[in-house]
């Protein structure tokens, strides 16, 4: 029987089962339960290491060290904490080191708030730190999906030698719902790991060729865009309006879509599961009769809506793009329905 589990706790246990044997972190609401859980749980498994560090910078750099030795290493944080990690995340990308980072997104600029939100979409999908790199960005909409994503995040990170971010709203970490935990995977060391024998030689800092590295990176990212887009969609082909949303906002959006369909509206829904690579292939289903695409998010300005508009252009889709940014929390289904009617009645204008 599936058991009620809190999102953060379930993710912690999923990490153990995915073979994570190293966690370094610093507490921050609303992600702290992940580290609280792993602080004792890693001690119960062979070779499990847990360290609480002085800040997020030290945490992610310790994760760099563990990952460079081929161990499945993890850290988790939120808004400000992930900001502090950006430099080392760029290093992980540059050194082709696979790591999984969990971010339980909280709303706001500066010191931010404790509200659940999707305010960090642009940062996570653009790499976030200096330079020109990307991370996988996986967006769960249920606790079960988050749990199942942990092993997937490592598979992708290790296959393509890069960082995977599981980006969930804070509320997903705090809420409970029934979960079936995945099986325990065999714990393996990555073949890229240092062992002191100089079998995994790294080029000197000043001996690398940035031009060929850039080409290699482009090819790798193109391959990922081709093969690793993930999304869910429903009733897109004949829809007058297509809704898009990810995570809990997408989940609420799906509720609004089902209600609106029951009321006789022809609406469809696309839920990105990977925010990067952006699931542009989902747009192939959109018909030319569709009157508009409506993007539901919880941030101030609308962030994913920019990707939606950009990729619609790429796919020759001319219809208007509407933005419904509900700032923080989980959007209320009734609000989405009310705003949909404003769009239909031309009371809300498109943004692209």
């Amino acid at each position, binding site marked *: 029987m599936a058991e009620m589990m809190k999102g953060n706790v379930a993710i912690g246990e999923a990490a153990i089962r995915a073979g994570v*044997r*190293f966690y*370094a972190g610093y507490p921050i609401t609303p992600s702290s339960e992940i580290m609280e859980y792993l602080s004792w749980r890693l001690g119960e498994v062979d*070779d499990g*290491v847990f*360290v609480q*560090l*002085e*800040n997020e*910078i*030290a*945490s992610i*750099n*310790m*994760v*760099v*060290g*563990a*990952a*460079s*030795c081929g*161990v499945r*290493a993890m850290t988790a944080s939120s808004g400000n904490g992930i900001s502090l990690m950006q*430099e*080392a995340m760029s*290093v992980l990308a540059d*050194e082709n080191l696979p790591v999984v980072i969990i971010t339980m997104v909280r709303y706001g600029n500066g010191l931010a708030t404790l509200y659940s939100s999707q305010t960090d979409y642009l940062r996570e999908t653009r790499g976030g730190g200096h330079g020109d790199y990307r991370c996988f960005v996986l967006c769960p909409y249920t606790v079960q999906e988050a749990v199942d994503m942990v092993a997937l995040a490592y598979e992708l990170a290790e296959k393509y030698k890069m960082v995977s971010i599981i980006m969930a709203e804070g509320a997903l970490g705090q809420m409970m719902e029934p979960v079936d935990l995945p099986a325990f995977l065999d714990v393996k060391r990555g073949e890229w790991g*240092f*062992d*002191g*024998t*100089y079998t*995994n*030689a*790294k080029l*000197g*800092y*000043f*001996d690398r060729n940035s031009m060929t590295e850039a080409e290699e990176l482009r090819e790798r990212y193109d391959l990922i865009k081709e093969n690793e887009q993930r999304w869910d969609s429903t009733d897109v082909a004949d829809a007058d309006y297509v809704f898009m949303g990810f995570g809990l906002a997408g989940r609420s959006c799906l509720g609004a879509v089902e209600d609106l369909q029951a009321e006789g509206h022809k609406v469809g829904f696309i839920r990105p599961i990977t925010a990067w690579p952006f699931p542009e292939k989902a747009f192939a289903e959109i018909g030319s009769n569709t009157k508009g695409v409506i993007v539901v998010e919880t941030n101030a300005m609308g962030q994913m809506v920019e990707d939606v508009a950009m990729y619609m252009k790429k796919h020759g889709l001319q219809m208007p793009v509407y933005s419904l940014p509900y700032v923080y929390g989980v959007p209320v289904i009734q609000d989405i329905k009310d705003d949909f009617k404003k769009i239909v009645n031309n009371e809300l204008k498109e943004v692209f």
Partner: protein
Amino acid sequence: MEKERKVPHFVDNPSNFCPGCGHGIVSRLVAECLEELGQDRNVIYTIGIGCSSNMSAGMKADRLHCCHGRASAVASGMKRVNPQNVIISYQGDGDAYSIGMGESMGTAYRNEKITMITINNTNYGMTGGQMSATTMPGQKTTTTVYGRDCSVTGNPFKFPELVASQFDVAYAARGSVDSVGNINRLKGYIKDALEAQIAGEGYSVVEVLIPCPTNWGMTPLESLDHIRNNIIPYYTLGVKKARGGKSV
């Protein structure tokens, strides 16, 4: 009797250090100690940003270049998952003490079982000679053009003394490369530090005073005199915390 002086295999390559720089001596000493301890193919270096970065090119050992100041944290992560390896965090004074004060202190505070080798040339060499945490009082750098005024910058930072007196570390010392005698003593410190790590005693650190003729605006020989006459009186040499728990 003549002693054979073979260059350790993994540093027997050209490096990019300036003429008269002390980095080469230190990296060779560390390599010699590793060879003598049978650890030369059981070592991982974390390398800081600064002139230490130049070491990477000529060094054929497992190594990771780290974010500026964070090499000790990276080294700790390595040691926690690979306790059988010798982990050396090789950093300059700007890297380890200025930008990296947090990570260096945190690593010593937790008594992580790694060895930090800090190269102290009293300035930021790589970026062209700016003031660092160890710049001497009155020293002219490109950001203290009238000489370091400690009333506004704070005083030069003494890391080995600080961790030896405040933290539960295994070993702390300061050496210098200004003379053959001091180089020999330095090698002893480095070996002690590595042995402390291998024995699982805890955190060890060796700070090394080296000349920086390029940024000091001196000849190599003047630089050595400068170390002897001006730097060593402030940054005293010797063991600050001996193995076995005694602060010196």
